[in-house]
């Protein structure tokens, strides 16, 4: 049974809430429509990441040993730390929304700040990981950095730097050098997806930080309270979504066949 939205003639005659936008008839309608809109938007984001994940899955099936080797060469410790950081930030975000609901101005601000700090920490760790990959010549293509090289040619003075072929042979001495070098060469596609997926995710996080900053400004001004906290709720939804995408990314990228080889 569909409830019809209230028309203006049915609301009380008290003045409109200052945050009521002109196209809506009531705060209830505004909140419902805005939240629904954010869910629809997140659905489009799922479709976008979904396309990327599908392509990833297809290549993981096609080049499985290379994906294992690539996955092993990125740091599961940092990835796990980042996972905890992001889950923590989702917690602080949820607390911020709760505080907004309760009208607790200072709490909102602190929780938002906490979320932003954790989010920035996440990005900081990612920057460090990206730098490591840059250093080890694991950036695909030959446009950025010294050019992709996973078989010992990264640093003339240190043939072990970024040498995934060597890692493969260390883990399984039965694999002859030619095969190891070939698998190492194929990790380029793994790293392509690594950068595309984490890059797209990081891009969404940067936008998220911008949204959080804006929410912070408004929260400081005391704009949110029990009668109106919709922007916080929407920001929360968006931030949780970005968190969930990472929850998928982490095992898909960092944990391929880890149980066999260990950290």
């Amino acid at each position, binding site marked *: 049974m569909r409830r019809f939205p209230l028309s203006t003639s049915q609301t009380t005659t008290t003045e409109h809430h200052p945050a009521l936008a002109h196209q809506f008839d009531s705060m209830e309608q505004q909140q419902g429509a805005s939240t629904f809109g954010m869910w629809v938007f997140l659905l489009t984001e799922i479709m976008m990441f979904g396309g990327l994940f599908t392509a990833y899955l297809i290549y993981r099936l096609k080049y499985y040993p290379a994906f294992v080797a690539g996955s092993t060469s990125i740091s599961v410790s940092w990835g796990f730390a980042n996972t905890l950081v992001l889950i923590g930030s989702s917690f602080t975000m949820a607390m911020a929304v709760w505080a907004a609901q309760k009208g607790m101005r200072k709490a909102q601000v602190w929780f938002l700040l906490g979320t932003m700090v954790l989010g920035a920490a996440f990005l900081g760790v990612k920057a460090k990981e990206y730098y490591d990959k840059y250093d080890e010549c694991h950036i*695909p293509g*030959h446009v950025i950095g010294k050019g992709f090289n996973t078989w010992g040619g990264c640093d003339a003075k240190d043939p072990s730097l970024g040498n995934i072929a060597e890692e493969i042979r260390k883990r399984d001495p039965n694999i*002859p050098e*030619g*095969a190891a*070098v*070939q698998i190492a*060469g194929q990790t380029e596609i793994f790293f392509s997806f690594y950068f595309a997926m984490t890059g797209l995710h990081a891009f969404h996080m940067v936008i998220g930080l911008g949204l959080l900053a804006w929410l912070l400004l408004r929260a400081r001004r005391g704009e949110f309270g029990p009668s109106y906290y919709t922007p916080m709720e929407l920001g929360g939804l968006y931030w949780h979504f970005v968190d969930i995408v990472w929850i998928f990314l982490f095992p898909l990228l960092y944990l391929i066949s880890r149980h066999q080889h260990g950290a």
Partner: protein
Amino acid sequence: MQLNFPIFPEQASSMAGQVDALYLFLVLITTFFSLLIAILILYFAIKYRRTPERQAEQIHGSTLLEIVWTVIPLGISMVIFVWGAVIYYHMERSPSNPLEVYGVGKQWMWKFQHPGGQREINTLHVPMNRDVKVTMISQDVIHSFFVPAFRVKQDVLPNRYVFTWFKATQPGTYHLFCSQYCGTKHSGMVGQVVVMTPDDYANWLASGKAEGSLASLGEKAFQQYGCTTCHRPDSGARGPNLEGLYGRPVRLTDNRVVLADDNYIRESILEPNAKVVSGFQSIMPTFRGVVSEDEIIAITEYIKHLAPQEANPLNNRTSPTQIRDSEVPNIQDQNKQQNQQQPAQQTPQGKRPVNPSEKKP
């Protein structure tokens, strides 16, 4: 400009008539329903045109009519689907015992190789009334092999063999078009298929200046690239024996069983560690960047002609497919010993595979 105005290409293959029949059926359906709708709306527009007295009759609808005009189009669609699927199925099934031709598409020409070693560019001579199977691959982008007179089309992909087949039914010269946009000279990538009577075809085969059959060219390449170093029939060989291999199932190290077809052989040359035969080490270097598509085709043809060897008491392996699991430790130990005696096989261009990201298109 011709005054005789054709709207069908010639029917020059065994399937052309069938395709045209379906086309005609669809033309009739389209004409019928288009005319029906057009006449109805024009008729209604005139018969029920607005006049001061005319009152429209407010009809909500009719579930019965909705069902009727859903079910009937659905039925007709299913007829069309089945008809089209049957024709398609015939066209996609590889013919038995065809005359095999190989094609390589590249920007912006077609290269064909015949088993007898004859090579053609942009022209393909075939005999009439014989199944001809064209196995093709692209050297660069996606092309498409299209002969309107045969009603035949197949996209030609890089890195993967595809095939099409036809049986030409009348002699003549027919357009060959590339029908997948492939860059600047896409419309210049055209040629002809020349269908000849069996006698004329035999003459043509004989007159060509072939350097030898395609298989013999392949044999030369096989030796030139050092394949015989490892792929030998004797028991000490580091690579599987290829005699009798083509078209047989092969067991791999991970226990998968795959078919040794053109794609398998090509992949084994270019990505040798993708599928390693059970009982062997993955030590084969890649020949990507070294062997051309034409040479791969020739080598494949050569391998196709390698007859299975008789069982030899000195040879505990007759073909890769007959490796017994109990032999596997033996062979691995043997190979390990040999590996320790000699350094790893060097690829002609160095120890690492050609870096894919360094290859310029």
